[in-house]
């Protein structure tokens, strides 16, 4: 096979089969996928099921801490987990650009396979299309995940209650700044790494021990936007203590240089967890015992507020609104 992807590989014929065999079967290896029927045959769950789908496109495809492959697995695994579910199966659809360097495809597939294995999920079905050069930027991936809901009352953005305490599983803004720095090749931003990680193990431990009201991963729009969504859904006020927020110094200084706010940058391996006050310490300890929650912190609390505001208590003792992200954050001019 040539070093670059040809349109033939999307034809459904032998070229397609070779591509699937060579790149995906090996990387995703599991007994359900191996059957290669038109659909995957799955055992039914006994209880409720959670399902989520997400399309992934990122430039560059590889960045410190992850790749489009890790994101395509972690993003969907985490979305399913946020509903209080144990993710089990993923489907994946690739749209590939003609002429794609096959070494890149191999690396992406390998990253996906390893991420799925580490998260304990199987990629059980998939599809591949090849589109003419220029129709898209190298690789788009869509993954859909399903999982078994583990609790009778699954966490929901509508379930925040006054008195709840908010625990965040670790540092904020790392992924967003990493992508921006890698995309634009910004030499003055260093020491930043994407936090791309599967949170299903951490979530399962939390659900077993605590009464979790809300569980959300602050991806696009970041921490601040996610909190505002929850405040509106639950019709409550939220207060956050700025001095308690875990933010790496490299992210803080990079953001300060660019005029960006880390609270609006995407995270790909963090969750926000709302629990009753008397369970906050327990939730914190569980998060910190996970490899993906070492820097977890209690950052705020929920209050009655008909206007559903999110208020930031600043480090110097002031207060201000912590609003939604309006559009993409853009670096400033001076």
């Amino acid at each position, binding site marked *: 096979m040539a070093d670059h992807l040809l349109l033939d590989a999307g034809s459904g014929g032998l070229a397609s089969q070779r591509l699937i065999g060579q790149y995906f079967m090996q990387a995703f290896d599991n007994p359900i996928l191996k059957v290669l029927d038109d659909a995957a045959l799955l055992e039914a769950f006994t209880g409720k099921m959670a399902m989520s789908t997400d399309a992934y496109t990122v430039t560059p495809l590889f960045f410190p801490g992850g790749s489009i492959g890790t994101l395509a697995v972690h993003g969907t695994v985490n979305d399913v987990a946020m509903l209080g579910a144990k993710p089990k199966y993923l489907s994946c659809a690739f749209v590939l650009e003609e002429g794609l360097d096959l070494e890149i495809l191999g690396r992406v597939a390998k990253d996906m396979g390893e991420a799925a294995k580490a998260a304990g999920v199987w990629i059980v079905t998939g599809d591949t299309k090849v589109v003419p050069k220029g129709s898209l930027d190298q690789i788009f991936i869509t993954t859909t995940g399903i999982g078994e809901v583990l609790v009778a009352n699954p966490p929901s953005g509508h379930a925040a209650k006054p008195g709840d305490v908010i625990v965040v599983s670790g540092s904020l803004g790392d992924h967003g700044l990493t992508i921006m720095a890698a995309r634009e090749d910004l030499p003055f931003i260093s020491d930043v790494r994407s936090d791309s990680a599967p949170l299903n193990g951490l979530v399962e431990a939390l659900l077993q021990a605590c009464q979790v009201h809300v569980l959300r991963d602050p991806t696009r729009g970041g921490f601040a936007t996610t909190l505002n969504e929850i405040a509106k859904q639950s019709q409550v006020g939220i207060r956050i203590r700025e001095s308690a927020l875990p933010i790496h110094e490299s992210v803080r200084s990079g953001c300060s240089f660019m005029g960006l706010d880390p609270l609006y940058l995407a995270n790909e391996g963090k969750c926000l967890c709302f629990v009753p006050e008397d369970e906050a310490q327990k939730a914190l300890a569980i998060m910190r015992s996970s490899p993906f929650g070492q820097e977890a912190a209690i950052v705020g609390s929920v209050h009655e507020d008909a206007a559903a505001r999110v208020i930031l208590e*600043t480090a110097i003792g*002031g*207060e201000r609104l912590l609003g939604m992200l309006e559009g993409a954050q853009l670096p400033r001019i001076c």
Partner: protein
Amino acid sequence: MNAEERLRDPILCHSLLERLRALLGDEPMRFMEVCGTHTVAIFQSGLAQLLPANLTHLSGPGCPVCVTHDSEVAAFLELAENPEVLLATFGDLLRVPGPEGKSLKHAHAHGAQINIVYSPMEALTLAENHPQKTVVFLGIGFETTAPAVAATLLQAKERKLGNFTVLSLHKLVPPVLKTLLDDSACQVDAFLLPGHVSTVIGLAPYAFLARDYQVPGVVSGFEPADILLALCELAKARKEGRPCVRNAYPRGVDDMGNPRACALMEQVFEPKDALWRGLGRIPESGLKIRSQYADFDACERFALTFRPVKAIAGCRCGEVLKGAITPADCPLFGRRCTPQAPVGPCMVSTEGSCAAWYKYVGLKKEAKQ
């Protein structure tokens, strides 16, 4: 604690606030900052809410996007439609609405070639990579940005990159301060002078503030304690009746500025009258590319003119920029004009007065509690 963290230390900030209160006494004071980074720092840190009741904070014309005139916006929107042109711009400008309500984002969606760059040098790389296009770099910004643009233009000349041009819409800070002080609608008792701009120009260009207008000006850094220290200096100067121009940000700003950067600016640009949003034409307040570099001047290359355009109906950005009203006083604020659908440019840039007020204060008329 590192140095920056110390300047966010609550105990230090509260002792500076006490000192500021004591220095102000019962006297009211209206101070204006003219730097978008100050605007954001004051709101973001929560300082806006903690300042003494008799101290009024005004955000002046300190955000380059906000002061860009409608005619200038119309000119670069027109340029974007030229199929020969590849526009290179800082991201901030993408959302600025032109007279018809359309922005570069709309132009991009309709096929205009617009690239976001983070430095002017990136625009040079674009020119190298797209020899069949003419790259126009939108030169917007104050004295902070202009030297880097000048250096880029000189590089283009050296590398004989005939397809690189700059649309210079640069503006200068000292002339606009003078205009504000000459305007009776603008009542400013003291200026918090911009940290970034002053790294380039130093203190001398502000001397007229104290000398001719008896208004003190103090250069400030961006951490809460930096700003409070500068405010204390301003209050002290007012109290003692000894207006002066001072540098309270010596770790970032040399009193003499950066002579090399100034020389670059001087070599490539010459002062010209410029249009400012809400303030109109201000003599010698902009930078024009000198005639010996005319080949790199987008105005010359495309015979651009800044035609008068109809003002945006109801938009009071101009009065906000003068400190005559606060953003929340504008009838459009938070109603027809929001960051999702900005009517005026002060709502566009994250460092614009209106966007900062909307984001950090909300619809309340008063920033303090």
